[in-house]
């Protein structure tokens, strides 16, 4: 009897903790509204800003969940997004076709993803370090694309019609729907989680580590491509600093959203969206509160750091071990 009881308690707590990220998002939203009212902000512009600033991050991060589920870690996502945006921008400028631009964006990021994953698989390299190298290569490639024709930017004009929150939301909804389907309702997602949970066991169940690593990078590649496209549309001027915001923030976002860093069966596809919106709303709140304080950006970052650590601590409360985690 006792066993059952402890179990129920355990799983109840588990459930509560697993809800931490969404509770966090709700609290942040409430805070945003309350402070917004006090500060008399323009809510319409505010919500648009949140969507505008969150969606690209959310899309790239959602795709990246597949990589993180395997327990792998890709640090070149930001650089990859930039390459994708550059390639798309150049193609649009040459052809004037939005469809071709979108295709190019996805193709470019898929190519980058495939290089990382295939290199890692064939030569059996640790993914993290491979992507560190890829990050350098991709930055250099984008530098070449940007400066190829002289000048320090790729300027895209004529796409401002696409630059609105509805286009972004449609992209987000469609891509998320695809990802949720693959992640939750197909063999691929199940096997990804199994691989992340225990690669040895997964291998002994006939699941090919290499195949699914490449599949994960393909899903991520599509996300990056869409993110690159939206980045190009939004920025309209692509420079070497474009998308620099994405790289590490993906990591912050998905951890914030409740994704276990070791991947595996507790991976959640929604973590990317929850996390992306959470950190952007938090930034908005801090901007409102600190805008007039000198050195505000530093203080805002300190608060973000503390928030981040507190959140991940709360969300992982059930998984403490005697030994220090590595």
């Amino acid at each position, binding site marked *: 009897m006792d066993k059952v009881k402890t179990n129920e308690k355990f*799983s109840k707590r588990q459930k509560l903790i697993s809800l931490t990220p969404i509770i966090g998002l709700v609290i942040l939203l409430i805070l945003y509204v309350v402070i917004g009212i006090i500060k008399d902000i323009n809510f319409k512009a505010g919500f648009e800003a949140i969507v505008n600033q969150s969606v690209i991050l959310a899309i790239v991060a959602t795709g990246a969940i597949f990589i993180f589920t395997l327990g792998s870690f890709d640090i070149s996502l930001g650089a990859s997004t930039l390459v994708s945006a550059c390639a798309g921008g150049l193609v649009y400028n040459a052809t004037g076709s939005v469809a071709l631009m979108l295709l190019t964006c996805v193709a470019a990021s898929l190519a980058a993803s495939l290089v990382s994953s295939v290199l890692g698989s064939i030569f059996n390299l640790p993914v993290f370090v491979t992507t560190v190298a890829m990050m350098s290569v991709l930055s250099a490639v984008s530098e070449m694309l940007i400066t190829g024709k002289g000048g320090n930017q790729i300027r895209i004009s004529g796409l401002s019609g696409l630059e609105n929150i509805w286009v972004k939301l449609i992209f987000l909804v469609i891509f998320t729907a695809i990802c949720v389907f693959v992640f939750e309702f*197909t063999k691929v997602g199940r096997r990804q989680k*199994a691989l992340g949970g*225990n690669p040895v066991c997964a291998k002994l*169940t006939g699941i090919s580590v290499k195949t699914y690593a490449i599949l994960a990078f393909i899903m991520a590649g599509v996300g990056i491509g869409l993110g690159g496209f939206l980045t190009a549309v939004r920025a309209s001027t692509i420079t070497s600093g474009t998308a620099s915001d994405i790289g590490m923030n993906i990591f912050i976002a998905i951890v914030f959203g409740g994704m276990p860093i070791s991947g595996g069966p507790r991976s959640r596809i929604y973590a990317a969206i929850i996390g992306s919106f959470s950190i952007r709303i938090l930034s908005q709140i801090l901007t409102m509160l600190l805008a007039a304080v000198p050195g505000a950006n530093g203080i805002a970052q300190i608060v973000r750091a503390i928030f981040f650590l507190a959140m991940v601590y709360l969300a992982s409360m059930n998984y403490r071990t005697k030994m220090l985690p590595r």
Partner: protein
Amino acid sequence: MVSSVRERKNGEVLLTVSDMTKTFGPVTALKNVGMTLKRGDVLGLIGENGSGKSTVSSIIAGMQTADSGNMTFLGEKWEPQSMLDALENGVGMIVQESGTIAGVSVAENIFLGELSQFSKFGIVNRKNLNEAANSVLRNIGVENVTGEMPMAALDFQARKLIEIAKVVMKEPEILIVDETTTALSQHGREVLYKIIDRYRAENRAVIFISHDLDEILEVCDTLTVLRDGNMIRTFEKSEFDADDIRTSMIGREMQGDYYRSDFVPTREDEIALKVDNVVVSGHVNGVSVEVHRGEILGIGGLSHCGMHTLGKVMFGAVAPDSGKVVLSDGTEVKNEFVAMKKMLGYVSKDRDNESLILSASVKDNIAVAGMEKYAVNNFIILDGREKKYVDGQIDSLSIKCSSRNQAVQTLSGGNKQKVVFGKWVGRGSEILILDCPTRGVDIGVKQAMYQLMVKLKGEGKSIVMISEELPELIGMSDRLVIMKDGKVTKEFQRSKDLSDAEIIKYMI
């Protein structure tokens, strides 16, 4: 050290344990256990896997703490903070799982956590350290290992001897020997027995843990039987009787058959899987065996005879250096993917690390192998169908869990193993390779497993059972292959007269 200040009087109470209880999540490992150990005693602890004998000894040795209960050592409260703490104060344990570190030297392993005696101002004197290690090794009669050797260069037996040296050099009052001998050859065993004899003579005490009844009867003076976390009975030397002891280990009269009731080897003619002259360097040295449909093939031997590796080769998880594994239709099992496709199933000896995703639910673990059974077009997974499939396995194997969503890591050993079985049986595996399928499983579940194997055999499936426990090999196999040093040394047919003693000859 406590010991030096006291005179060792035979019969003085060294250690008492009372009312000790320990749970691991939902699993109760110990229930109100109590025992007393006197000077000069060599106490045997015996019980099936999961009976709690290792748990109680690891608590005494400071590896973990009990949930409740009291211990005294030399009349004082005994609450060791760590194994090192326990050892410093007179209780040392040679552990069952390897307790050495491959990445550092022999000497560093021996003096792990107590380098202070070799260091001045925090700097370690390597020369002194190595010399001290050498003398410790010589003292227990180990000649061919020296302190500066990297641990990784040693074979399994030598590593075990290092562990023994590490503990014995501290001259603890109580020495706990946990399933150590299985890893040792005759030479190693003699080293250990000599130490035990010395301990008895010096009026210290030994707790000797084993599931090998014969050995325990030989070595020990008294014997305590544990079952399912309960103390069952203590036997004095005069009361030693193998049958009595076995009865109290197993406990109740078993309902129905335990092992197979028949003693006739049966099988169909068709060869399901054939191992053809397989070599895996360092593990398997030219093995050829075949399994028929409807046959239970037992493979036995000492832990490092190569049979576990052979099991992995059969499933395609280890690629042999030469030789191959072929199926009845001529398919060569080159990797796990082919194995899965051809309906092979593999249960690893290292269940937690290789056969289960501990952090995943019962559902996820069972479902992961059976997708082609319930996924639409072998691709799309619908919740309802998946649940139905999983619930089917939970029911038919009577897996005890609060729900199909319970994390596997919170299940007991037996139920974990049932989940693994469910994973493979559920998808309709034709050939099952079971490596130590009853390891760490309580008796009830064991019986269920055996009965399931009989049922599967009846359905014409082939079963390869690799085991280190002779009774179950004798009790279940149609044919029993014994391996030693990577080679098959003998093959036995199922028979009523098959005895442990006869088989062991071919193992060591």
